[in-house]
């Protein structure tokens, strides 16, 4: 069975694509709508200052919608589990092309920088654009660079298991402590003074939760990448 596309597929996808682009462009051009139509979250965003977080998006993702973030992490875990179940048991597939000297040297040079940038994006998620999801995936892309340049490299499995378990359990435990102290799941029980806004240690539990999210996403994405690259499908 060869992979080919018929003319109909090309035409239909071409029409669908151009329709989507034209609709988006129209949507952008029709920006002078009534004012109340693009202000759905303003009442919510006014509460943002109470938490002492400089980045309002982080407050929405981790605090106002913290339970949704827990669900998203669970979804990512299930995806990682499925890929591991489908591909993890099979034998190692050898990467045929030998990586050359330049790729190996450059990956040794770049991997610490990529990891450092990922940790920066993760830790500064409550101050600047970014956060746990992005930082975790940046670290996973550094692992991808190591995987394609060094044939014998493997992600340390026991370390990844412990990190992932720790991050997931700690997220739920922080939520439960909030439930016990302030009667709301994932409530901000640590001090979050508005005078501290913009400092690295500010905002109570929100940066802690985003770092935990980053650890969990990074380990899960690293395992997904390793399973996809190193294992042979036998379906």
């Amino acid at each position, binding site marked *: *069975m*060869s*992979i080919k596309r018929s003319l109909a597929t*090309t035409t239909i*996808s*071409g029409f669908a*694509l*151009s329709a989507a*682009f034209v609709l988006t*462009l129209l949507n*952008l051009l029709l920006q002078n709508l009534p004012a109340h139509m693009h202000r759905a979250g303003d009442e919510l965003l006014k509460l943002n200052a109470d938490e002492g977080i400089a*980045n309002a*998006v982080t407050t929405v993702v981790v605090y106002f919608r913290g339970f949704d973030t827990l669900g998203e992490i669970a979804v990512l875990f299930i995806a990682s589990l499925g890929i591991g179940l489908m591909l993890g048991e099979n034998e190692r597939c050898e990467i045929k092309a030998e990586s050359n000297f330049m790729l190996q040297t450059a990956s040794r040079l770049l991997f610490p920088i990529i990891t450092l940038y990922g940790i920066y*994006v993760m830790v500064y998620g409550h101050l600047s*654009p*970014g*956060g746990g*999801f*992005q930082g975790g*995936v*940046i670290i*996973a*892309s550094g692992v*991808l660079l190591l995987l394609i340049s060094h044939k014998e490299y493997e992600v340390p499995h026991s370390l990844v298991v412990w990190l992932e378990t720790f991050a997931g359990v700690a997220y739920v435990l922080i939520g439960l402590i909030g439930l016990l102290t302030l009667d709301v799941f994932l409530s901000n029980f640590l001090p979050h003074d508005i005078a501290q806004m913009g400092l690295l240690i500010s905002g109570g539990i929100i940066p802690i939760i985003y770092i935990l999210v980053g650890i969990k996403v990074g380990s899960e*994405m690293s395992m*997904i*990448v390793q399973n*996809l*690259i190193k294992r*042979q*499908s036998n*379906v």
Partner: protein
Amino acid sequence: MMGFIILATFIGMLIIAFSAIIQKSLADSIILFMGVGLGSVVLFFVFNAPDVALTEAVIGAGISSLIFLMALKHLKAES
């Protein structure tokens, strides 16, 4: 000036997307699909959504095209 940048990015994305559709080889299509993702990164950034732009740059242009390429490799190994 900003509107010109936005329109130019849109037209560039359209051209890249059409050429991704009409490519013969699927690997070339995936690489061009990454190009569409990069164009949308610029648009997100212009429209004051740097968080979404970072996510799109990392996930849309990076990891998802890796997953597409690996799926393509597995499909070729089957056929």
